[in-house]
């Protein structure tokens, strides 16, 4: 990929004897929003830190903005923006000062950072709080400030490690809305997340990671098409009346692709959820609750790894 902003071949990260990232290949193109989806410990953050040029790779090839992080780390870092998993704002400084000081690290003049801060405060919807100390701000505000700060150098590539973890739904949607805006402006983004809805909403293309390797790659809808059915019927039963997956598969013979048994519910993968539900009821099973929904990346992950993504 000639216009690749990030290119990795056999990228590996070892911590002592633990291999966190086990030889992954990646190509991220300009303007793309690319995602790493996977559970905690899948190797997403380690991969991200190598791309951010703060963690040296243990093996493999890596090019970021056409340069080698081992040799040109500071040059690459001057042209990217990083939103780390844990906020690292200066809590005892004001919102505006956080933007000013951070901008100075990128060699920007004082007048340039002053002007940029006004724009970024607006972007982060923090203009009213500009002179307040950071410490008492809400989690969502701090997150937006961290994202705004990462934009101080107009980065060509923005890396976001779990941008909305720990935020309430309203705060998450506001962050997503800002990230859409950046996407429309053509800012290339790489996002790690363990929220499938986040990955589905934001990413043009993503890789599913598990145990340090990439287990699938594609656009969210492609992955769902490839690894799941159109609809999913979720069934909850009283424990003593709960039929086994095999029994349900028998009842639904021909109508269902597969049945997953989770501790709290059964997932029936089928093209037609309503029809499957009718068949289950007709066979005399009485679920406490039944829900028909579209397949999501959660189902893709379950199919690929045999585990659920969150909790």
């Amino acid at each position, binding site marked *: 990929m000639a216009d690749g902003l990030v290119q990795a071949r056999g990228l590996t990260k070892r911590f002592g004897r633990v291999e966190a990232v086990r030889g992954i290949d990646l190509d991220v193109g300009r303007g793309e929003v690319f995602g790493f989806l996977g559970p905690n410990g899948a190797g997403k953050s380690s991969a991200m830190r190598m791309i951010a040029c703060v963690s040296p790779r243990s093996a493999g090839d890596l090019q970021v903005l*056409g340069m080698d992080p081992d040799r040109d780390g*500071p040059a690459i870092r*001057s042209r990217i923006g990083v939103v*780390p998993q844990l906020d690292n704002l*200066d809590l005892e400084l004001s919102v505006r000062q956080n933007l000013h*000081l951070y901008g100075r690290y990128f*060699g920007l003049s004082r007048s340039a950072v002053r002007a940029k801060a006004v724009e970024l405060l607006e972007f982060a919807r923090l203009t009213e709080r500009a002179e307040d100390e950071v410490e008492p701000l809400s989690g969502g505000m701090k997150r937006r400030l961290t994202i705004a700060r990462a934009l101080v*150098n107009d980065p060509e590539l923005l890396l976001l490690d779990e941008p909305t973890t720990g935020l309430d739904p309203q705060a998450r949607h506001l962050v997503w809305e800002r990230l859409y805006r950046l996407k429309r402006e053509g800012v290339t983004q790489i996002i790690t997340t363990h929220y499938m809805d986040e990955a589905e909403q934001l990413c043009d293309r993503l890789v599913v990671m598990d145990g340090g390797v990439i287990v699938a790659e594609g656009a969210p809808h492609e992955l769902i098409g490839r690894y799941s059915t159109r609809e999913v019927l979720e069934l909850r039963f009283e424990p003593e009346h709960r039929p086994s997956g095999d029994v349900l598969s028998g009842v639904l013979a021909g109508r269902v692709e597969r049945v997953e048994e989770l501790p709290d519910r059964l997932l029936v993968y089928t093209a037609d959820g309503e029809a499957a539900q009718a068949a289950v009821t007709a066979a005399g099973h009485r679920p406490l609750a039944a829900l028909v929904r579209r397949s999501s990346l959660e189902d893709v992950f379950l199919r690929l790894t045999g585990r659920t993504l969150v909790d």
Partner: protein
Amino acid sequence: MAGEADRATGRVPGPWGGVALVVENHWEWYRRNWRATAVSTVVQPLLFVLAFGVGFGALVRGSGQVAAATGGVDYLVWIAPGLLAMSAVQTGAFDSTYPVLSGFKWQRTYTAMTAGPITPGQVALGHLGWLAVKTAGAGLVCAAVIALLGGVAGPGILLAVLVSVLTGAAVAAPITAYSATLETEGASFPAIFRFVVIPMTLFSGTFFPVDRLPELVRPLVGVSPLWHGTELARAAALGGPWPPWPAVLGHVAYLLALLGVGTVLAVRTFTRRLAR
């Protein structure tokens, strides 16, 4: 690729430019939050000046034994350069413990700095550089107040402030390097204060000449950077008598060596901590 690639406005500051930016950041932080730290860097040494220089000094004034120990100068004048050095060491030691660990662990400001073009080594050097600026400023303020109290013999006090800054940095550098290796503060920091900093402040010739100590412990005094600093600062502040020049060179060399080794180690431990 050309037009788009020019989009990013960041650039890499020079090796020393990066250090200067870290110092600037510390300064901006200090400008907003100085009230909290002024107590330990300025008020505390001045309390020592009042208690020992003025209070205790009045008590021993006219004592022949004290005059013999101080070379005949007033106790306040004699103790002032020692207190300047002691204060720089205390500030250097303290600011290189909890605040450094916080940069890695609690506030993680160091990880923010190194997400951009600043390197871990520049963060370490910037921390030590800022400490030098801060102890110099605090030393000048203290010296001015001591002058008002009549405790300054002459312009040599300025050289004493400079020596204090060097002494503080020589203590700060190895502690900074050590703090960067800690995952949690545990008992390490209190141990540094209890077993290193406090004995050093008591037995480095700040309050009484070390030749009053028992023969047995006197060689230990030579290990203390504060003793080397105090010997130089006092000679500078009083305008002499200077120790023989090989001794002067020895004091300076000891402090510079400690600073040099500590700085190299700090750059290394910061790099190991931030780039893993």
